[in-house]
């Protein structure tokens, strides 16, 4: 365990950013967001960023390939570039767990090279939560927000930041800033963790459980009449899917730049009516089917294909952002019969 005083944190940032790109959460008019560190930037105190950290590995838009078209001829241009190492500083345990969820999709055969490239070069400094809020329910999915995974785990006290490397990549970065760190006592961190756990116990969603869901439950829930009332007010805006750290559906489109064609992929949303629209019709005609798809995917289909792992990490962003206050917690409570 290593530590530095919070007043020395900017020196740590400066040192890391001299060597590789560093991203820290900063406060903006639109809330906390990860930005590339430049000297003088101050790390946000916010519990979490408005958008999740998935952008680092699965950006909202990225190029797939480019094409040169001349008459009847086509040339494919591989536009991929190997990324440089970069550091994500201050991702929370929920977002870090979400990378595991995304890994199962993008790193399973055939491996998505765009994601793999970013993942390989991303070094994660994960920060323990000290002030979880009422929208938090990561514990429902077995996540300990005081023990975040990642290449380096971090704990923050009133005056200090504690670091523990979990991987070689993490150790390398800590070695880089070794001069700025001193030895930290485990028991300080333990007492911080205990304090947070007390807060967690008192949160309204502390008893939420996904036990009634999981693989093999399609027949049990698919035709549940409750989907109608749950989805009734859904605007189909897709906000939940965009702020979600585990939503990974994407679209592939072409853009004619005037000098050629760029094929790119971008986030898509199962909440949108044209998501499944085909020349001969649409298998998900109403918002009910689209709403159901999103939650069945997270609570039943994904766990069925991924050894029981749920496609939700309880970050609470959808609870905070849904314009009609509908969310996965209400779905779980309603369908699971725990009103």
């Amino acid at each position, binding site marked *: 365990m290593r530590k530095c005083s919070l007043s020395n944190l900017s020196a740590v940032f400066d040192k890391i950013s001299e060597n590789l790109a560093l991203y820290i959460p900063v406060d903006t008019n639109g809330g906390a967001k990860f930005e590339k560190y430049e000297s003088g930037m101050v790390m946000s105190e916010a519990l979490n960023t408005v958008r999740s950290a998935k952008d680092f590995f699965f950006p909202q838009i990225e190029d797939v*390939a480019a094409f040169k078209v001349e008459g*009847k001829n086509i040339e494919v241009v591989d536009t991929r570039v190997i990324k440089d190492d970069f550091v994500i500083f201050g991702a929370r345990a929920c977002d870090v767990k979400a990378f595991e969820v995304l890994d199962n999709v993008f790193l399973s055969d055939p491996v998505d090279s765009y994601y793999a490239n970013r993942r390989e070069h991303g070094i994660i400094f994960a920060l323990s939560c000290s002030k979880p809020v009422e929208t938090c329910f990561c514990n429902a999915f077995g996540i300990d927000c005081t023990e975040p995974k990642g290449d380096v785990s971090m704990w923050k006290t009133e005056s200090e930041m504690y670091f523990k490397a979990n991987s070689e990549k993490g150790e390398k970065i800590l070695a880089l800033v070794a001069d700025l760190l001193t030895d930290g006592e485990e028991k300080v961190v333990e007492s911080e963790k205990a304090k947070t756990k007390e807060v967690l116990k008192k949160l309204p969603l502390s008893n939420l459980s996904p036990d009634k869901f999981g693989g093999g439950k399609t027949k049990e829930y698919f035709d549940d009449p409750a989907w109608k009332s749950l989805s009734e007010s859904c605007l189909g805006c897709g906000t939940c899917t965009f702020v979600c750290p585990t939503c990974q559906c*994407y679209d592939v489109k072409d853009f004619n730049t005037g000098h050629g064609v760029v094929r790119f992929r971008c986030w898509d949303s199962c909440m949108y009516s044209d998501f499944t629209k085909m020349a001969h019709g649409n298998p998900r005609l109403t918002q009910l089917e689209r709403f159901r798809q999103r939650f069945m995917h997270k609570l039943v289909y994904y766990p069925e294909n991924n050894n029981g792992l749920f496609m939700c990490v309880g970050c609470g962003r959808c609870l905070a952002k849904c314009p009609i206050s509908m969310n996965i917690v209400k779905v779980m409570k309603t369908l699971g019969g725990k009103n």
Partner: protein
Amino acid sequence: MNNEALIPQVCVITNVRVDTPDVKTFRVVALDGKKPFVHKPGQCAMISMPGVGEAMISITSSPTNEEYIEFSIKRCGCFTEWIHQAEAGQQITVRGPYGNGFPVDTAFKGQNLVFIAGGIGLAPLRSVINYVRHFPERYGTVDIVYGARSMGDLVYYKEIIDEWCKDSNINVHLTIDREEEGWDGHVGFIPNFVKELNFSTDKTAVLCGPPIMIKFTLEGLKSLGFKETQIFTTLELRMKCAIGKCGRCNIGSKYVCKDGPVFRLDELDELPDEY
């Protein structure tokens, strides 16, 4: 960097055949003049014109064809409209093959087979029909039931008459929806035709066609005594990645692009009715 499934290879259209007023068959080879890949009957490929779009199309040629691959495409959207204007020499991009394909070496082996298709639904079945014709010793009797709106809408009409009908172990049963001058064959919808043909249940049935045809034909087959484990069908839903990642072609926990497109009916019945 590793090979990337989403980055396609360039191929070239070497021949365009007009099959019906809205279906054309495109013969395609890689730039070296050879087949771009080896596929299994019933598999699909993503073909595209950069700037126009990319679409999942079934490979209609049999793997036993060693010269080229073929796609039969109905004009009914953005990309298909474009490719219908394409001529020989036009390059396109191709990636694949994708999907599970028909179980030609397992469940179909030694079986009597009945193929039932409506309209463009014959396109994915043609790959397996010609595969089976290539290895007649591996399979039992073959029946082909094929219907379309009109005579002019029967895809591969020439091939059906000149080749399939001449095979001694194949019985071809054609039907069109309405009476037409010059047609002395059967008139009527496929589901009723299948019931009239009164197939014995010692066969494995393979279906493809519009959803409504599939639905009623399944009922017909069941009324003849066919079990769900004897019936296979091939599906298609909207796809972008074709490798089970973009998240839109799922029926329940299965992705049509990688777990399908071929499903046995009892497997399909386990999935929610959302296709």
